[in-house]
């Protein structure tokens, strides 16, 4: 389990994109489109990363938290599971799962503090207290079906970079991997393929000829390239995301 991705619940739970990109009927009723759905998850992923800076937990905890949140919304509606509560609670739960527990009241403190930050001030992020977080923690455990072990691309990344002789690309690829959590890739692809896609992008960007190395890996390069394309598409689309777009999506929820 812990050491072997292929026997893990994470592997068994990987989904097809069509299963992930589905707006829950309850959310549809509120006029939430697939685009809105993705935007809100992106926005909340950023929020988790931002909150994590304050409560001081490592990137892996952030990655686990975002994965939890994205898994929750595969089956649950945002209408019933308010993202503003789900996101911080996922970080709270991930901090326990990843052995770096942070007290709930500290979370509440920082949530309120962050509320004064412009970006997150619109949607009453501050209205939740410890009690709500603890109640939501249980609901999230249930929504996750108690599967809490998550594998991330980071470990594979450093090994692969070493092997490819691309240690100089660590910073770049690490950043790319971080950004993949703004998408749903972690729900769909094995983490080492996500890592490879990031290395692939870095190779292209750095003009490093790596074809032979990739071929030796005996992985399906089509999948790797597709993931890479998706990441690049995401960056393209990301430029077009305006605060207004995010606001309008969030407002449909806020009601």
């Amino acid at each position, binding site marked *: 389990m812990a050491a072997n991705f292929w026997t893990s619940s994470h592997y068994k739970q990987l989904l097809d994109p069509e299963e992930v990109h589905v707006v829950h009927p309850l959310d549809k009723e509120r006029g939430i489109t697939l685009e809105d759905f993705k935007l809100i998850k992106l926005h909340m992923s950023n929020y988790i990363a931002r909150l994590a800076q304050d409560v001081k937990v490592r990137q892996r905890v952030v990655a686990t938290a975002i994965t939890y949140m994205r898994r929750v919304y595969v089956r649950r509606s945002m209408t019933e599971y308010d993202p503003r509560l789900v996101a911080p609670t996922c970080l709270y739960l991930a901090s326990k799962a990843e052995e770096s527990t942070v007290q709930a009241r500290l979370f509440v403190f920082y949530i309120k503090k962050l509320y004064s930050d412009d970006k997150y001030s619109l949607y009453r992020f501050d209205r939740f207290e410890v009690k709500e977080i603890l109640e939501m923690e249980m609901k999230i455990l249930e929504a996750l079906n*108690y599967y809490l*072990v998550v594998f*991330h691309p980071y470990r594979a990344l450093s090994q692969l970079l070493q092997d490819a002789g691309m240690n100089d690309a660590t910073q770049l690829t690490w950043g790319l991997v971080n950004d993949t959590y703004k998408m749903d890739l972690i729900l769909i692809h094995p983490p080492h393929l996500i890592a490879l896609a990031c290395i692939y992008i870095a190779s292209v960007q750095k003009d490093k000829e790596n074809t032979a190395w990739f071929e030796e890996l005996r992985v399906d390069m089509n999948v790797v390239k597709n993931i890479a394309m998706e990441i690049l598409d995401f960056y393209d689309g990301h430029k077009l995301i305006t605060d207004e777009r995010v606001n309008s999506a969030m407002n449909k929820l806020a009601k």
Partner: protein
Amino acid sequence: MGDGRANNSNSHSNNNSSSSNKPEWLEQYDVIGKIGEGTYGLVFLAKIKSNRSKPIAIKKFKQPKDGDGVSPTAIREIMLLREISHENVVKLANVHINHADMSLYLAFDYAEHDLYEIIRHHRDKVNQSINQYTVKSLLWQLLNGLNYLHSNWIVHRDLKPSNILVMGDGEEQGVVKIADFGLARIYQAPLKPLSENGVVVTIWYRAPELLLGAKHYTSAVDMWAVGCIFAELLTLKPLFQGQEVKGTPNPFQLDQLDKIFKVLGHPTQEKWPTLVNLPHWQSDLQHIQGHKYETAGLYNVVHLSPKNPAYDLLSQMLEYDPRKRLTAAQALEHEYFRMEPLPGYNALVPPQPGEKVVNYPTRPVDSSTDIEGTISLQPSQPVSSGNSVSGGMQGPHVMQTRSMPRPMPMVGMQRMQPPARCGSASSSTTADEKERLRNGDDWIPSTEIKALLSYLT
């Protein structure tokens, strides 16, 4: 888990004022009674109504005290158990949540016996040693489960007889199940006092490197414990019965080390090169090296000839240097397991007809404690009267107000004491009894297990 759907519907209609007061998930069980009680909660015996009364042990975690939700311990235990699956590891059958009082329940396949009780039965009741076939089969299965855990980077950290369960009557009769996972603390901080609130953990199975203050522990600590358990199966007595030093955090356990040295001889830097790097070896030279025990007398203690393969296996598990200590995988390959009698699937019943079968007692069940009495049906918050358990002073934290907090390994269910004992056990524990408690007697148990997730960093 299996009943995810049932859970959902439950959570959607939290104020289910209709029908019964039970949480929906509880309807699927007939709860027989309490079979154990520990620091982390209570354990109940139940039967699944729909499945030919299949017995289940339901471990109820204490409700969180105000403020911190599901304990990290419970989180880690669930996290681990949800991933692992092996014949010789306890099976998590289900997880349940009662949203009203925020309590959490783990349902396990029920195991009627454990090594603690089996050993005690032989020692105190039938007065005879455990037959060779049973010892060998129990040991082999224990190693088999441990090999699985270790190859998945899970270190149990609190192996001891009460955590090694053995299935009773049924298809899996005589099958060993390693239990009690997940109370690992941050793995960089090994052997933190196994608990803050004065809970006692027996130190008898603790590896010498940990006793000497090693900061990092490895799967070798489990193998040491297996060695101790092996010896105990052979002699019916704990191998190293040290007096625990109380206090926090993690006080130096001189007496435990002394007990080990007395039997195995003093460790030397030649045999164990990294010994000198261990904190307590460094800082407490005088005490530790005060007594010199030259002669190793392990074979005398376990009454085995040094030429006996069982002795060879045991002594390799009790190797001082953790790097030289036998691994579970190596132990499974040992000659001992290839000689007659060969180890078997049903450790309790030898395959050869005619062999005497020992009938072990079943776990006492305290049917006066009903699981429902411990479930708050009102939405948490202040509960002054709603609790059916009398004497409660603190609202939902019911079990804290119950008799005496006998620590027990949650899944490795410690037996309930017979009623008489049970009643007398309350506040008036004598100093002597406390001492016995601390030393892993009778009611002890334990505690926590430490399991370690060191995947992904």
